[in-house]
């Protein structure tokens, strides 16, 4: 299994993307922002298409769109964030997130048409497909870049972990103590935008969502201590990634992303039975 180059690349990129998703996912779940992460993975697509239609490198559009929309969501989210332990209602900001990302996707359709008419009849959807790799199709350069970005995003999250935790659990007290809660909230969603952009183009939006939500939700159930929870979320995400890759390699016809997500959700389901 490890003698195959595509498998080594998948493991390298997968490990660090899973780590970044797990660690930042712990905060995403804490702050009830899974929908925001999902929305960011969707706007990656129109961003890349806009860049392609304009003739710029797709990554500029990809990262530009997710980081810009991330900043917007962060700004919006300030008024609507409900915090931990709020039983029931979702934040009202979700409505705005839904409206904005649908509009951006509508623009994506427009760019798709522009792109497919300007590139001489080539199917836009086909072009869009090539923008979003599958985890078994990564080159070694792409895999290394994905690993570096994943590692950097994970470290950045750990760097702001302490004030972000304070600001997430008790925003009012944190604000009074001089923690820049507003700035942290915006910065965190922008960081999430970076993770979303890299994960989407390297391994697909499906894996981002699965690895962001499920391992972190399991960690919240299993670990009471925040730092133990963060570590556990990262660990579970990486474990799901490895097990899923191995399973996808061993079973013909089973896409690796399906295996990874199923294992991640299975871990969460098991955690609800235990704790």
């Amino acid at each position: 299994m490890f003698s195959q180059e595509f498998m080594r690349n998948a493991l390298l990129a997968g490990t660090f993307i899973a780590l970044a998703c797990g660690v930042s996912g712990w905060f995403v779940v804490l702050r009830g922002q899974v929908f925001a992460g999902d929305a960011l993975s969707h706007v990656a697509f129109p961003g890349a298409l806009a860049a392609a239609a304009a003739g710029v490198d797709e990554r500029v559009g990809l990262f530009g769109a997710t980081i810009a929309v991330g900043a917007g969501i962060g700004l919006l989210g300030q008024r609507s964030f409900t915090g931990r332990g709020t039983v029931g209602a979702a934040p009202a900001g979700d409505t705005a997130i839904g409206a904005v990302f649908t509009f951006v996707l509508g623009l994506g359709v427009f760019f798709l048409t522009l792109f497919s008419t300007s590139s001489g009849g080539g199917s836009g959807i086909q072009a869009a497909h090539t923008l979003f790799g599958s985890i078994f199709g990564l080159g070694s350069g792409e895999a290394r870049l994905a690993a570096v970005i994943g590692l950097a995003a994970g470290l950045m999250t750990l760097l702001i972990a302490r004030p972000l935790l304070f600001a997430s659990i008790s925003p009012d007290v944190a604000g009074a103590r001089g923690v820049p809660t507003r700035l942290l909230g915006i910065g965190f969603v922008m960081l999430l935008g970076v993770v979303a952009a890299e994960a989407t183009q390297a391994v697909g939006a499906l894996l981002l969502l699965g690895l962001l939500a499920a391992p972190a939700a399991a960690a919240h159930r299993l670990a009471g201590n925040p730092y133990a929870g963060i570590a556990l979320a990262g660990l579970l995400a990486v474990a799901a990634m490895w097990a899923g890759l191995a399973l996808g390699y061993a079973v013909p016809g089973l896409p690796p992303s399906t295996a990874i997500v199923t294992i991640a959700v299975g871990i969460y389901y098991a955690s609800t039975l235990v704790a």
Partner: protein
Amino acid sequence: MTTAGMVIMGTDPHLTWNIAHDFSEVLEYHFMVNALLAGSVVAVMAGLLGWFMVLRRETFAGHTLSMMAFPGAAGAALIGVSATWGYFGFCVAGGLVIGQFSGGRGRSWSEQSAVIGSVQALALGLGFLFVSLYGGVLGDLDNLLFGTFIGISNEQVLLLTGVAVVAVAALAVLGRPLLFASVDADVASAKGVPARALGVVFLVLLGLAVAATSQITGVLLVFALLLMPAASAQAITARPGLSLALTVAIGLVVVWLGLGIAYFSIYPAGFFVTSISFAIYVGVQATVWARSRTRKGLQIPEQPRAEGVIA
């Protein structure tokens, strides 16, 4: 391209200064009449169910239901039935699953959102598995994602109308208790309203509405009819009846304008429908925001920042 598409290419539609002429030109074609009929039916249904979705703040659930179209279409291709059945089957099943697992047992919103996200990821993973087992290329991916209004058959219009009648009738029966349970679940439960069961039934109805809407707008753009008109209307008025009527009216205007412009344009209808709906949404939100600002400025002085400490 479909035969209807050929018709467009042949006649080369363009706008003139004679609006009555343009209007009659649009209605001359059977496919355009069908598109407007189907669009209107969907606008009414999506508006009414979307209104409750916005009120209940189940935007993420609604979005996850729209993603069910992917495993639905792939699964239908795998077992060789029409994609429409796959859509409706998976959307309804998705509504049941989300309703069953996300609510209740005192789960915090943090965990609910993680559960909904997990359901969505699992469904998409299932879709990838179906595609892989099917081995072929999914046809009409463009249409699945972004919708089409060309070539909507009479049967489709009938099917959509049937689904809409069922969903709206169910909503008419459940409307009052559902409104009560949506506004204050605790008090409603105490008064004997089965809030949790209502929530599950509502998600199933929402699944029907999402599947129907995606036939017109495409999977990715359902919120143009499901979310934005309702969010706009609720920002304008707090009175439920008026707000519901306004939602339907906005939805109809969006569909008619969007399809009408798309007929004369080379760009897809989804782009226009979404843009018009979003323009209305932003306009309403900006007006409400500006008003609340001037009102605040007149009456209430700025609150001190350290409020949380004192409390």
